[in-house]
């Protein structure tokens, strides 16, 4: 890339070695490249935070107050990009969702269909919720039952997540060697994500009905 100021060759998203001016990020980069990391699903929190801090020290608008308007604008855009990248990648769910979007296989919005394996169970649960909301039947008993449902579904959600996270290192390994296989793996992750999203919606309904203090993330 050429420096916008002195036209010497300069690395994107860093200072120009010749004139010291801050350079914008390359168009079309992704959150990993902006943080200077390889595109991997397994990421350590410490490593990410270190990049986040280091890059804010490089880009933050505080340090460009006395520079030209152009440089201030670049600093603002770059640090916003770094902050967004960090926010997305530090959350393992947001991270894989973002990757799916990049690979052209985004998770469908909306509630969708309940996963087949949970279909029966969920139908029954919805019925109990309805009953409880309309104050039919034995309230205390229903409440105990719903609390048990909540615990059960919470455990399932945790299990789905751990299966999902278990696939991260495998994808990291495959992505470099075998494009087809890694796409298959992404499809698998997407199914898990959909199940998780579904469980989460129901858990939130339950939280609301039961007034549980802890909130489902």
């Amino acid at each position, binding site marked *: 890339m050429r420096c916008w100021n002195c036209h010497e060759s300069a690395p994107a998203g860093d200072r120009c070695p010749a004139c010291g001016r801050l350079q914008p990020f390359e168009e079309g980069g992704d959150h990993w490249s902006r943080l200077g990391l390889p595109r991997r699903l397994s990421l350590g929190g410490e490593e990410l935070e270190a990049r986040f*801090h280091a890059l*804010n*020290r490089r880009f*933050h*608008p*505080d*340090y460009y*107050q*006395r520079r030209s308007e152009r440089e201030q604008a670049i600093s*603002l*855009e770059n*640090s*916003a*990009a770094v*902050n*967004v990248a*960090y*926010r997305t990648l530090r959350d393992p769910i947001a991270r894989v969702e973002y990757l799916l979007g990049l690979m052209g296989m985004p998770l469908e919005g909306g509630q969708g269909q309940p996963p087949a394996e949970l279909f029966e169970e969920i139908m029954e649960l919805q019925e109990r919720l309805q009953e409880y909301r309309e104050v039919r039947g034995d309230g205390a008993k229903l409440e105990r039952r719903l609390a048990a449902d909540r615990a059960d579904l919470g455990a399932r959600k945790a299990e789905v997540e751990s299966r999902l996270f278990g696939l991260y290192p495998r994808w990291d390994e495959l992505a470099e060697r075998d494009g087809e296989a890694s796409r298959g793996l992404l499809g698998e992750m997407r199914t898990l994500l959909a199940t998780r999203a579904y469980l989460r919606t129901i858990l939130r309904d339950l939280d609301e009905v039961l007034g549980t203090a802890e*909130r489902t993330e």
Partner: protein
Amino acid sequence: MADLVIGIDLGTTNSLVAYMDGDLPRVIPDREGRALLPSVVTFGPDAPVVGEGAKRQLIRQADRTVYSIKRFMGKGFEDVREELRYFPFRVSPSQEVVRIRIGERELTPPEISALILRELKQWAKAHLGREVEKAVITVPAYFNDSQRQATKDAGRLAGLEVMRIVNEPTAACLAYGLQRKKEGIIAVYDLGGGTFDISILKVKEGIFEVLATNGNTHLGGDDFDRELVDLILREVRERHGADLAADPEAMQEIRLGAEAARVRLSAEEWTVLTIPFPQHGFTFRREIGRAELERLLERLVQETLEPCRLALADAGLEASQLDEVLLVGGATRTPLVRRRVQELFGRVPHSELNPDEVVALGAAVQAHILAGGITHMLLLDVTPLSLGIETLGGVMSVIIPRNTTVPTSAKEQFTTSVDGQTVVDFHVLQGERELAKDNRSLARFELRGIPPMPAGIPRLEVTFLIDANGILQVSARELRSGTAASVEVKPSYGLTDEEVERMLQESYEHAEADVRARLLIETRNEADTVLRATEKALGQGAGLIGPEEADRIREALEALRAVRDGEDLDLLRERLDRLNQATLHLAEVLMDSVLREALRHRRVTETPEKR
């Protein structure tokens, strides 16, 4: 050398200005050595008066004296309607921005806040002996976009370049950080006169990263006072059969009496409330104990605890993971507040730095960072409220979630719904509720200059960027044609750029009149000094000079006296100079060195004491 940038804490009750003196932030006092400027403005017959002088007018000029204006910043009439009964000044019913009515004039909150800022700017200039043009101004962390923008406008109206709007609790944390260099997870509980904030920060290797923030921009010592005010009103009604709620002066007496008693009860177990109402022919007297006050305050103090829990949850932390709790703001001196905070977080909170000053000190630290004077510290703050747009069915769709590190940005695509449509508009909101109508309306945006195309074909990409001040910037372009669409903003509760421009223009004009009024007062004071000194000198030194010279002096003296009370500044100046000239020789020959000094250095360069 680093630029001079001052730090200002623009508070509901008190405002302060600070700067970096070498490596240490320092609060700048006024001439009398006071660091706190009461955030009160009175509009007397001459120029507006700010601070202590205005505070003394709270009772006598109740309807022309404005206090707690911060509670009105970035608000609409509907937002403040309920609490207006507590304020003696008039607020005009209007659609958007609140307008305060003072006699014939109507002033917006940023204009009034600008007067406070201008005063602080003067303090800084007088103290540092140089022009001050740049400032960092603090706001409550939980301030929304309109409130931040209003604060920035106030700075501009005061002739300041606002380098940064920084959050009060984070500023406080910076001040502590500079002084103690302690690392870890820190909660800052900030309860001032009008607002409450809780911020949770992670401090690591000079980086102050805010993890979460929450609060209530309408909860503080003022609300504590109101509990007591209501109690007094009730008892006055019972005992004396008088309803004082409609009497602005009495209301002001009650408020000040209530606040003073409440403050006393922070140190004492018992106190006596004594409020005279000479107009009504009685004095209200009552004993009150701390326990009774605490019963009145309990509900309000509890209201601060829920935001603390939410902030912890958003930060993904348990109270036990905190390394430290800091107390900021005058109202945290209330023992009940300390107890409840201690119970909630399970640790004794710190308040080593003066809770009144620490925010201003932190603002000075941030100012120094921006000026390039400090490079090892960096503050990464968050946006306190989710930002979104109104979608079909009146639902808010979140674009940037709360507690996102700023600066941050997000893109959203829009299109047209009618063939040939060249304008698209959307409504931007802030808040955590599902429905648009339950959230805070920030502005309506209009994208113009879209090339005419069939419906649904244009692809408008709108970029929402929240800058380091927590203020939104919106830009747009049409992706198919690559043209930038122009964005027109209609703030819901704020001033447009044009309005700020117009006010600036007017304030220049006013400022000129104000400067003249001030100069006139100063010159009159100077004239008085010289008149007194000359009379005394003539009495003592008449024998030392010839009768002609004495006559000349007397003549100049009378000439000056004749115009002393006039409005003609130039004439006054001229006669004063003439008298000065006439007494030059007398001063030389005078034996009394004190008088000689008085005659020689009679130019009063500093502003006289304010009324």
